């Protein structure tokens, strides 16, 4: 029974990490749009 619990815990940890990958990818896509609009000029005026 406890073997099953540890198995589920392991799978859950890695499943969360796979979701983390998708989350980072989504964050990257949304931020990329923002960056390309807001920072098309190289460097800000000092």
């Amino acid at each position, binding site marked *: 029974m406890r073997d099953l619990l540890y198995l589920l815990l392991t799978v859950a*940890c890695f499943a969360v990490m796979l979701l983390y990958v998708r989350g980072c990818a989504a964050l990257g896509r949304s931020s990329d749009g923002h960056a390309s609009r807001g920072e098309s000029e190289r460097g800000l005026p*000092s």
Partner: protein
Amino acid sequence: MNLSSTTSNGWLQIALFAVAVLLVTKPMGWYLTQVYEGRVRCLAPIERRLYRLAGVDATADQHWTAYATSLLLFSAVSMLLTYAVLRLQGSLPFNPAGLGAVADRQAFETSASFVSNTNWQSYAGESTMSYLAQATQLTFHNFASAATGLGVAVALMRGIARRGTGNGAGAGRIGNFWVDLVRGTLYVLLPLSCILALLFVQQGVPQTLDGAAVAHTLDGAVQTIARGPVASQEAIKQLGTNGGGFFNANSAHPFENPTPVSNWWSMLAIFLIPAGTVWMFGRGVGSTRHGWALWTAMFVLFIGGTSVAYWAESRGNPQHAALGVDVVGAVPGHAAGNMEGKEVRFGIANSALYAVVSTDASCGAVNSMHDSFTALGGLVPLVNMQLGELIFGGVGAGLYGMLIMVVLTVFIAGLMVGRTPEYLGKRIQQREVQMVMCYVLAFPAIVLPLTAIALVLPDGLAGLNNRGPHGLTEVLYAFTSTAANNGSAFAGLTGGTTFYNTLFGIAMLLGRFALIVPVLALAGFLAEQRIAPATAGTFPVTGPMFVALLLGVILIVGALTYFPALALGPVVEHLLMTGGRLFA
């Protein structure tokens, strides 16, 4: 009476080691460059067969999400396999001692520990693990987890170095996980391990598949002396910055680390690949001067930590000297220093140096008991891990940890001068900084809450063997070590319980993979960008100013994050010790 017994001999040994690290950096880095640029092909037939067997297209360049998914799936499957073998070892071959199944909680913790390159052990290897489990699972992970870390660092290097195409086809590609895994294992870790194992055997480390030796003493008593394939595991333990020992006493055991020479080889092996990866990175991004700047920052932190630890351990506990129980040192008029928990064959200098090297890197091997260090001496390994183990660091992990700090430094420098931050021609924008912050915040977000939980729940408090600030340090050290994938034990904490085994297992998995994911994402985001030429406004990433700023950022981030916890543990313990109060 001068309470400092640091000796010129001790400093000379530390200096010789430092020079050796400097000398091996470029050759190792050059070789790593050849391997990861695909110019070392002597085992190409084996490589091809492995790819064919696994159904891998070695020519495919993976998007960072595919790279991360491959890494996670490989780690998950190999962890589950290890769990199964540990639970079933009693029914499997190569078990001459007839050892039974590893307890479920320990099997979970151990499989998480080895897949994450932590190698934290809450068991005595010689009396818990069969040869099959040691050789096919634990040693397998010693290679695979190290090659995985190396691959992630190389992937980040590619992301920085590549001339991206924006969001077009081929954007965000950072290499092939399976190729990096195989090349790192076949061309880097395996050959170096063979050489180092022979050096260890020459120093007297056992390498045998026979069972324990039975000795009959002159008094007629019978002694059972554990042995086994120690040298081979010892070699990859150090080279892969794994740290998990064949024996419970780790590198303090005379069969794992019999002589000062084997001790020296061990320390050099820990820093060999991490130092080389820094040079490889400089070469890979077209600026060896930048590589040396990173190396210098690491070296300064290494020398600083070693000096503090050596000084503190040589000074010993002044209360002992005041009570007249301090033994006489080798130098007349000087204290003997703190020899509790240290092997006489290594002495204070080599114990302090080993502790620093092992925690600068994510190795976690120990040749002395860190729990027996003075408060300040024990603070150094703890801080080394809390800074993110970026002082040469774990194989691959040290470099990518340092590069995260570099990006943060460049970002802060950009804000200071009011320009869009750039790093080697790549702009550091919102999403890059978001990934850096995910990395920087993840580690303390694992360590501090878990430490707090353990310090208030009865199951956590039940593991404490020391009262006061030292007890707090033991728990803080344990969660820092597991989440940092170091694996060294402060000792003094009874960690072989369901509570600690389970929490440590979770800390190790999150501490490894929740940090690797943002690193790979950062690599992918940078790989998408085109390289912009440097201008007069580009922040220089070579030279003393950059190194000083980088060191400042590392120390400030570390201090801000962990100082309150450290103040309650080793700092207050030191202050109370100087005031005459000790804790049992």
